[in-house]
């Protein structure tokens, strides 16, 4: 079913049969979309953990000072 790679040179691959802008814009957008929606929750998780550990420490020190 897969006969061969459609292109014989790298520049031909980049050119996409004359539709370079359209094809690469779509695939570029697609990757930004995927990367953004995976990286954003990971970064948010880090900031949540940081914030909550700060709270825990605060809570801890206030408990200590009362006892």
């Amino acid at each position: 079913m897969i006969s061969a790679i459609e292109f014989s040179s790298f520049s031909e691959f980049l050119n996409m049969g004359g539709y370079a802008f359209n094809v690469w814009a779509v695939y570029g957008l697609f990757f930004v979309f995927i990367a953004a929606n995976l990286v954003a929750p990971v970064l948010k998780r880090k900031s949540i953990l940081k914030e909550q550990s700060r709270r825990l420490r605060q809570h801890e020190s206030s408990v200590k000072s009362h006892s």
Partner: protein
Amino acid sequence: MWLWFSKLGSPKWFYELSEKWLPWLIGAMAICLTVAVVWALLYLPPDYQQGYTSRILVVHVAVAGTSLAFFPLMAVAGVITLVWKMKLADMVAKNAAPLGAWFSFITLATGSIWGSVSWGTWWEWTDSRLVSMLFQFFLFLGVISLRSALENSETAAKACALLSIVGCINVVVIKYSVEWWNTLHQPASPVSLNGDSPNGPEFWIATGIMILAVYLFFTVSLILSTRNEILVRERRSQWVQDIVAKKTGAGVRQTV
């Protein structure tokens, strides 16, 4: 059954289960995505009418198809929230809305970039498929702003559930728009692997793998943001505090 159901609704149960599933889901997503993209960009033969712009449709069809899953998902989650007051369902619904807006936007953008060549126009207000998809994008923005506008989280969950049910009607309109009103957007080509479709079997296999990849991505992203939501909403419970302590080294007091 009820035990299973209440267990499923427990944020802790979901958090621990998803921890086990995530590596597999991410691995499967990475493999499917790589195979689909390499196949589409290197091996897919040019369409006799569209040339290499048919490669755009591999992405467009997968993202557009998946975008239709959001409102049914949010509606089901909304009903579960309303009837059984399951916290987890509302967390999923809340985090699905922004992701759904992204999916709709990417569908519109990739479709537009494809249409600029094949139809000779970036946008057409009279086409039902295009306009109903744009409407879906605005419905997602509506759900997001409705939730942020309503302070009471129970009222917000109710209102969002109702709007999600309305969104499901629009999903049906999107799906059948190309058959009810025949304007610009072409109906889906018949799927066939025997070569009797305008698109060859290579196109359908590449698109099939891409659909799988996009669904896996949708699942992974939604699980990640729902886990964040759990960490925030359940921050006062002991098990979340234990996780925070373990991950950051804070609050070791319990063990000493």
